[in-house]
């Protein structure tokens, strides 16, 4: 029994202070306003306060802490991306994840499980080997493995996928992990709050004020704020905010759905992803199976669910893991994924001075929570782009300098 739980037995009153200080009013000005109290926004606030000594910060959140994609994702953390800039970026994130529970003194249930990206075609194997080689070059634990290895890790998997899409191999990433997504927002939030950052929930941003191409303030539903720096980290709501400044990006919003099963005794350790079957699955510490698939096919600013999502995910999942047909799905939900054409985020400075953007997180945002906070806080504090995010610049599309993260999209002959 962990010693720290003893205190709960000792006192009659619950000996825990408030995590998030309520603030009756907004001040009239702050040094930095962060729009969005999700993982990224709160992480930025945390590092601004902790590492840069900037505490006169307000985080403005239209709903509740972590209520956006932070609370809806399927919690997969990995760094086995394709491009050098991606690999270096996510590797730094994984490094930061290792100590986050200790930093927060809050258990994020960061659980290293191993991650398989299954390949069912030779084109896919080529891509996996490409990723493995790039990963290894940067010291990431990642390798191409073959059916024997996979079958040993998941003895119940049907390697032929009902005969339709035999597994030829996989990219195996031993550091692949899952974590308790809500808790990340709470941990960063409490850490920021403790250091004087103000978190204002149920507060909408109505407009962003500029003068001469420079940010001067923010209009909110609870009053106006003067500030010289605004960081926007609102994922699916990004285009709405950018519209206030007349900024255009390639970001397009499609729903991304997921579903969860009843809890059952532990049987699945690793995280499984199949590109061909378009499915992924992992088992939480509570014993539930969390499952997801590909993006919804058309733009929609809504978190509505569809039945066909559950149907095609189930059909494919059962090909891979036949025993799942006896498992029951309890709930389905969706988030709004802010997608970009090169499957990489848009981070850093923008054409509007003092306005910093952390967006374009598509299906790859949760794992980047710590490193996005780290790099964005640096960028905001210094008004200088952090080296790790130079490849994700706002203007890269104009320069035809897209990242190659989607570059492995291959077409069979």
């Amino acid at each position, binding site marked *: 029994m962990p010693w720290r739980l003893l205190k709960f037995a000792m006192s009659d009153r619950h000996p825990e202070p408030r995590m998030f200080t309520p603030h009756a009013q907004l001040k009239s000005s702050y040094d930095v306003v962060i729009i969005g109290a999700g993982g990224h926004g709160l992480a930025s606030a945390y590092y601004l306060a902790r590492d840069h000594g900037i505490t006169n910060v307000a985080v403005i959140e239209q709903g509740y802490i972590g209520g956006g994609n932070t609370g809806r994702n399927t919690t997969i953390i990995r760094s086995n991306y394709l491009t050098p800039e991606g690999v270096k970026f996510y590797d730094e994130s994984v490094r930061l994840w290792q100590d986050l529970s200790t930093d927060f003194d809050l258990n994020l249930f960061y659980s290293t499980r191993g991650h398989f990206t299954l390949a069912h075609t030779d084109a896919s194997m080529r891509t996996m080997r490409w990723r493995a080689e790039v990963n290894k070059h940067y010291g990431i634990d990642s390798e191409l493995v073959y059916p024997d290895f996979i079958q040993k890790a998941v003895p119940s998997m049907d390697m032929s996928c009902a005969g339709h899409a035999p597994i030829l191999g996989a990219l195996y990433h031993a550091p692949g992990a899952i974590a308790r997504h809500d808790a990340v927002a709470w941990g960063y939030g409490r850490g920021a709050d403790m250091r004087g950052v103000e978190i204002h929930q149920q507060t909408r941003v109505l407009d962003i004020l500029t003068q001469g191409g420079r940010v001067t303030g923010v209009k909110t539903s609870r009053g106006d704020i003067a500030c010289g720096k605004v960081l926007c980290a609102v994922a699916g709501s*990004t*285009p*709405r905010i*950018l*519209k206030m400044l007349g900024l*255009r*990006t*390639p*970001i*397009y*919003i499609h729903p991304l759905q997921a579903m969860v099963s009843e809890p059952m005794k532990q049987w699945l350790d690793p995280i499984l992803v199949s590109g061909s079957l378009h499915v992924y699955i992992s088992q939480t510490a509570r014993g539930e199976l969390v499952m997801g698939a590909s993006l919804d*096919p*058309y*733009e*929609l*600013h*809504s978190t*509505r669910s*569809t*039945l*066909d999502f559950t149907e095609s995910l189930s059909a494919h999942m059962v090909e891979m893991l036949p025993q799942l047909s006896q498992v029951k799905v309890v709930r389905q939900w969706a988030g709004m994924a802010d997608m970009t*054409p090169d499957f990489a985020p848009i981070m850093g400075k923008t054409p509007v001075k003092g306005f910093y953007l952390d967006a374009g997180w598509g299906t790859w945002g949760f794992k980047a929570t710590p490193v996005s906070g780290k790099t964005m806080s640096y960028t905001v504090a210094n008004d200088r782009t952090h080296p790790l995010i130079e490849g994700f610049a706002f203007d890269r*599309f*104009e*320069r*035809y300098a897209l990242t190659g993260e989607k570059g492995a999209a291959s077409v069979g002959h």
Partner: protein
Amino acid sequence: MKIMTCPINGPRLISEFTYWGECQTMPEPADCTDAQWADYVFNKSGAPGIKHEWWCHTPSNTWFIAVRDTMSDVIEKTFLYGQQ
């Protein structure tokens, strides 16, 4: 499943359709700057609203325009290109 009305084939399940994206007007290539062209190629209007979109009824290869509210997903009307 959601229903979309193809101007030729009538109401069909949305799974019978392919979504292309919002209609865009191409700037005159000779008259625009590289930046303006890149904006046309890559940038989107992004925010929710009522948009004119290209959709295709896949089995019959019927391309048409749908006017859809991208927040509520209400399809206001569909019509063949040029036949508002």
